[in-house]
């Protein structure tokens, strides 16, 4: 029963990892940009949430009402102001610039909030649980997983059923032709980054409720996000959710064997997938 419990808890944890990864996957899918600062942007969202909670006394989940639009705005400005200029045939400039951004965000957060671990207080939600058979499920992990499913379903629907989703796919498919079809790719990229950071805001708040965080934890979240994207297969959002779940389950099973093995087990699962199926488990069906 313990093992079933580990798998269920790992699956729920995978929801959080999928939220870390969704923004990363979306940005890479639309504009082939690998965002090294993604983890730090998650942490930035958590700090923004903390600030809103402290200033207004709102419940952290309600703080999303402020944090999501703020992060989306930051995303649009960041893309139009900086990242668009790094995009081109060479993959290196965006890597370097987002790496620099990562350093700037970390140090900015250190200046403003110090290195002390912080946590958002979500009250009863943090410890609430319900019984399902002989398993005891935390309300927060279940809620996180449900949010991840809803977010990914929403993104998927948007990509295939709305004008902006079609625009994302057209730009991703062929930028030059998209321009000739009247699409302003700079604007579209800005919107994609805004959307990605909106999702990142949700991930950041849920992270900040679940565990304590400090300015240096972004790198680890970035790795989990990357691993989930690559396990699932590039460009496939449902695959990203599956990747998050596999990573989460591997971690909880590792922790079950020996608490020190949690992170390592996740990385080993990732390496196995990379060795056996480097294209990921569910790569996008190409046309």
């Amino acid at each position, binding site marked *: 029963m313990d093992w079933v419990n580990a798998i269920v808890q790992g699956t729920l944890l995978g929801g959080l990892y999928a939220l870390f990864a969704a923004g990363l996957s979306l940005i890479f899918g639309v504009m082939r940009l690998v965002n090294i600062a993604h983890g730090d942007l998650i942490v930035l969202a958590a700090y923004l949430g903390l600030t809103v909670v402290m200033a207004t006394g709102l419940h952290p989940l309600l703080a999303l009402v402020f944090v999501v639009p703020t992060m989306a705005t930051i995303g649009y400005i960041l893309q139009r102001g900086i990242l668009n200029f790094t995009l081109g045939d060479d993959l290196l400039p965006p890597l370097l610039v987002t790496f620099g951004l990562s350093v700037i965000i970390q140090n900015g957060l250190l200046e403003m909030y110090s290195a002390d671990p912080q946590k958002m207080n979500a009250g009863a939600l943090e410890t609430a649980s319900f019984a399902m058979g002989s398993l005891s499920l935390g309300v927060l992990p279940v809620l996180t997983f449900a949010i991840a499913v809803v977010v990914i379903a929403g993104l998927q629907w948007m990509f295939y059923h709305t*004008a902006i989703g*079609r*625009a994302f*796919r*057209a730009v*991703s*498919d*062929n930028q*030059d*032709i*998209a*321009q*000739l*079809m*009247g*699409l*302003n*790719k700079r604007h579209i990229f800005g919107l994609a980054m805004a959307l990605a950071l909106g999702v990142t805001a949700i991930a950041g708040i849920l992270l900040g409720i679940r565990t304590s965080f400090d300015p240096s934890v972004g790198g680890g979240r970035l790795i989990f996000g990357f691993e989930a994207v690559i396990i699932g297969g590039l460009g496939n959002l449902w695959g990203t959710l599956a990747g998050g779940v596999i990573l989460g389950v591997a971690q909880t099973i590792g922790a079950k064997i020996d608490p020190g093995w949690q992170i390592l087990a996740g990385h080993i699962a990732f390496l196995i997938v990379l060795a056996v199926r480097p294209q990921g488990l569910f790569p996008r069906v*190409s*046309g």
Partner: protein
Amino acid sequence: MPSILQLNGLTKSFGAVTVADDLSCDLEQGEALGIIGPNGAGKTTMFNLITGTLAPNAGSIRFQGQDVTSLSAARRCRAGMARSFQVPQPFSGMTVFENAMIAATQAAGLSGRAAETLCLDVLEQTELMNKANTLAGGLTLLNRKRLELTRALCAKPKLLMLDEIAGGLTENECVSLVRTIKEIHASGVSIIWIEHVVHALISVVDRLIVIDFGRKIADGEPKAIMKSAEVQEIYLGIAIDD
């Protein structure tokens, strides 16, 4: 008739190679203009300059009376220019219908039902309706060419630019394509058409220009142009006996 497009002294060179040399040309509203010339003469370059894919070194482009020389390709498209490519370039991971919808929503600025209706009408006209839900990457050459035309038409263009759209088609396919282009012309859309399939071209256009080494070397009534000695020598490779 007011002119829809005016090219003034367009010049473009890549290093020592001049691909457009002081090109000037006027296109009247509703006119159909044919462009011929040998391979590498600069015909497609002329399209790239007009649509904004390339920026000229000198000269200006006026579209519907406005100087568009410094406008982006996207804005020129929204202003009413649309083109097809010699080598079809669909969004291959999207369906035929979605390809059309990109043009209808982004270039023509339509939304919802209006965009869908336009796309369906055009797909009917270009005989692609039965492929509407096929991924564009899996189409045959003829259907890819039709998709090029479909996408251009869904942009609701005032000026339609066709780049060797009849090339590589069978005679029957060519006839049905010419019929479609004539319909489009009859609806008042101005057309510039680059084509090597001269008989198809001449059956549609009102005027013909000949380009060689980036320069315009003849301009006039199609049949007269095709008969002129200079054109026969340069374009058809027939030597003139003195």
